[in-house]
């Protein structure tokens, strides 16, 4: 294994899920929070929070155990996960092969986009199921479930809520967690957050 291979090793699901360090910020029970100037959601529990340019991430027990990701509306050609800088060092071609959102996709294509992204980042046998129409802050959207296995064999569950806005951009909220204990622990809370979603 050469240095490149070892660098590539780091582009794992672990790194992806671990995200950047969760900072000192938090969400209090009952707090209503605005997501990227787009919409508001209300939590019932306490959460730790962090974010990047296009995604805000909440967790209670740590991002490897469960996390809730709110995306800024995805535009044509954008990807679901920030590309770790190391990936570029290893292979300048890496962008060429990343699953990208395309305006005009239908919900089935979004479901495939999400599971393919997970697989590229190291999830084994990622699968999207139970796709169905759903409300996204009172507007028509869709939701589906996600299941995948980590490299180490831990089974994860996921729940995804999506909506295409008037420009064809994709609003996406992803809830992921270890199927044992950590996903179910906040499943009701997440349903409540989904239901609380209201547009600005």
């Amino acid at each position, binding site marked *: *294994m050469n240095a490149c291979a070892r660098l590539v090793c780091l582009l*794992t699901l*672990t790194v992806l899920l671990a995200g950047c360090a969760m900072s000192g910020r938090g969400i209090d029970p009952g707090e209503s929070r605005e997501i990227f100037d787009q919409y508001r959601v209300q939590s019932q529990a306490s959460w730790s929070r962090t974010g990047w340019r296009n995604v805000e991430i909440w967790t209670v027990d*740590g991002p490897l155990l469960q996390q809730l990701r709110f995306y800024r509306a995805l535009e044509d050609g954008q990807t679901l996960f920030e590309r770790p800088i190391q990936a570029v060092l*290893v292979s300048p071609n890496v962008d060429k*092969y990343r699953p990208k959102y395309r305006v005009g996709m239908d919900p089935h294509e979004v479901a495939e986009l999400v599971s393919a992204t997970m697989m*590229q980042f190291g999830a084994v046998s990622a699968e999207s199921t139970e796709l169905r129409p759903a409300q996204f802050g009172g507007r028509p959207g869709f939701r589906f479930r996600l299941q995948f296995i980590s490299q*180490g064999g*831990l089974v994860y569950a996921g729940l995804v809520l999506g909506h295409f806005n008037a420009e064809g951009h994709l609003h996406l909220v992803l809830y992921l967690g270890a199927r044992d204990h950590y996903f179910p622990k906040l499943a009701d809370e997440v349903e409540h957050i989904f239901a609380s979603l209201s547009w600005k």
Partner: protein
Amino acid sequence: MSQHPGSEKPRIPLHRCGWVQLALLIVLSMSLGACTSAKHYRAAGGTVVRDNPRVLLMPPDVLVLEVTTAGIPIPRADWSARAQHTLLGVTNDAVHGRGGVLVPYQRPDEDSAISIAEAHLPALRLYQTVLQTILTYRYGGGGQGRPPELVTKGREGLSWTLGNTVVPLRAKYNADYALFLTYRQASSNAGRAMLSAAAFVLFGAISTTSQSVGLATLVDLHTGEVVWTNLLSGQAVEVGEPEGLREKGLKLLQGWPL
């Protein structure tokens, strides 16, 4: 032909990037350049200590390597076996000292490559991920400043659980706790030590010639809670002389709630 770097994309990472491995990467990274240190945490809500505890010893992970002049670690099966024997001796004494019993995990099938029964794998896998989270938020920072903080977890104590995944373990062994032990050591031979001295003269830097890391964790099998972790790092000790290893063993169990 064998494991080779990938084609032209961030390939699916291989075995080397499993959860255990990544956890150990972090452990090792913190041992770099560090002098001997041990840090433990206990359950945030306190631990109910049971009288005469039955402690299930999960298959220990002990590995000792010899580092050659070229910096190549050569695994030494004989040293590993000796080190494991000494460390388990210390552990056994410690449990007995509290009126308890150390129950070794039974390999399900002598011929199988897998030392853990199928029914216990969910607990093991969740443990590895919880452990990685604890390493990040309690031991992270690589010795350079404080670990990152989760406001939902604060900076002190442990509040993580393996939930119901421990039920089959408790059912089979009727044990109160599960104890996980990891110990890694790379000892340099004389040639390597010389080389590092040369590096000091030439570059003003000391390359670590020998290092050891140990990690011990106790899980309450009644509740699934992780009640204690201890991370030890420092220099390697002479495997041939059990005193050094006994001392490592005692340090490794430091602060446990039993």
